[in-house]
């Protein structure tokens, strides 16, 4: 039996007169490979922000394993195991790759509030960081700072920081955005290699990526759920083709 990890119940978000999210009900199960697609301005990133606690819904509930977390702060949700990557890299640019990952693992392991021992003496955190970087094939560039890396590798560091939190729910906001096609396989490989048990929600425009990865797709149009189903159903749905693909080609 698969457990529902993250759930949205009739979630609404208004910015003044604009309803960015309308009555969205959504479930993400353990081990899920779920994609959220929709044209520009459909409210995908707003929805992610509602799930992660960056925004608080105007109405409706967000639940984690059945308990209400609607008013939880971002940090509390991270502690529960809900982690995200950003559409635009949010990295510590002045620090080394190792230090970037150290930051996340120190936070999760409870090492970060420590004031009286040097950061370098938390060998457990350093070893775990290096272990993770090795898995993601980033170990050989662990000493470099972010601006020294090609964009694809920077994107991978973004993922590494998030994986350092050992999430149960992983929200990927356009993980391959801006990565040149010659490099995009390193991101796709990393996504393929994610632990099976975690529930993954991926948001993307890139249909190749979505159809390769997702077992289930939710289509969001103008803040509301427009359709939901397997990739096969969504691909064959004439309304989705008309609304989503039609609008996308007109660049709306």
């Amino acid at each position, binding site marked *: 039996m698969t457990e529902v990890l993250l759930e949205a119940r009739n979630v609404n978000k208004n910015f003044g007169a604009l309803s960015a999210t309308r009555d969205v009900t959504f479930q993400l199960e353990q081990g899920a490979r779920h994609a959220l697609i929709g044209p520009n301005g459909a409210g995908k990133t707003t929805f992610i922000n509602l799930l992660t606690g960056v925004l608080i819904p105007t109405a409706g509930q967000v639940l984690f394993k059945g308990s209400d977390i609607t008013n939880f702060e971002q940090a509390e949700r991270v502690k529960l195991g809900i982690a995200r990557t950003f559409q635009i890299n949010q*990295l*510590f640019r002045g620090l080394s790759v190792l*230090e970037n990952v150290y930051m996340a693992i120190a936070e999760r392991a409870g090492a970060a509030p420590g004031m*009286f021992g040097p*950061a370098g003496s938390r060998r457990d955190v*350093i*070893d775990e960081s*290096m272990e993770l970087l090795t898995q993601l094939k980033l170990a050989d560039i662990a000493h470099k700072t972010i601006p020294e890396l090609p964009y694809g590798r920077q994107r991978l560091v973004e993922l590494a920081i998030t994986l350092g939190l050992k999430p149960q729910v992983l929200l990927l906001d356009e993980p391959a955005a801006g990565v040149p096609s010659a490099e995009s396989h390193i991101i796709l490989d990393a996504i393929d290699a994610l632990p099976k048990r975690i529930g993954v929600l991926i948001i993307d425009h890139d249909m190749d990526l979505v159809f390769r990865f997702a077992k289930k797709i939710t289509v969001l149009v103008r803040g509301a759920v427009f359709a939901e189903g397997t990739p096969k159903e969504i691909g064959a749905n004439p309304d989705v083709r008309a609304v989503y693909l039609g609008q996308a080609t007109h660049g709306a």
Partner: protein
Amino acid sequence: MSATSDFSSHPAARALINRHRLRWWEPLPWLLALAFYFIFPRYLGFGTEVLITVLFAISLDLALGYAGIVTLGHAAFFGAGAYTVGMLADNGIWTEPVTGLLISAAVAAAIGFLSGLVLLRTTGLTLLMLTLCTMGLLEEAANLGHDWTGGFDGLPSLNVPPLFGLFEFNPLFPKTQYLYVLGVLLVCFVFVRTLVYSPFGQSLTGIRENTLRMHAVGAPVRWRLILCYTLSAALAGVAGGIWAQANAYVNLTTLGLDRAATVLIILVLGGYGRLYGSWVGAVAYMALAHFLSQIYPTAWQLGLGLLLVAIALFARGGILGIGDALLARFARKKPS
């Protein structure tokens, strides 16, 4: 992790593990400060002022350089510390120097914590203006509370008993003051140095580098900033308290924009976020001010202004940043 291998030989891990180790040049400023004591006995008053400024600049570096808290009101805490010592001594409540500094630190920390609760909800220009306002309020309170603070005249001729009951504070030959300040500076410096290399310090750097990301890795960003601001305020309070003890008076100059702006300039001049920028900046600024004002008594600030413009335009890392750049160029030119 079942099979954790040993990564300590990896260059990135080695850099992190060894980062806090003492470097060969780190005892230098302390040795120079001691040498100054023996070589320039007639300038110890000036030396004491420089050391206090270093301490004040280090307190600012912790908040501004490491955590990225942009403040223009740090003299609020310096003044709070100074007035704490001044008012306790003036009313004959408490005069013992060392414990007096602890009380100064506690008072400044309390003000830092309470104002931080409100201020640190904001960032950038708003934060800058609010820190300025907080300091302005304190300054005006000190100005108006004449009965307690002496108002515009301040509190002159404070009674400061001998340090440890042995060493007199002599205003004409401030030997005791100089060594006392140097000792307190050492203790505070070791504290800040330990802090910035700790995981807590690392997370402050993370907040400075990318606040959004720190939220997303689950860091309690606001509480970390408040804690950092409180500690920084406490250190500034120690600097203010020791200033009052060394000079045996307090007045409104401890609390104004002039002092807050000067310490900011010193930190930028020396290089912020690098511990020793406070030393370099304070010595450079105060020595320059000292000599320029002797040569051009009317327009000496012009020279400092030009220097600061040059630093802001060409050397964002301050004097230490220039040093780093030169070292890097030298290392590249050397055939490897």
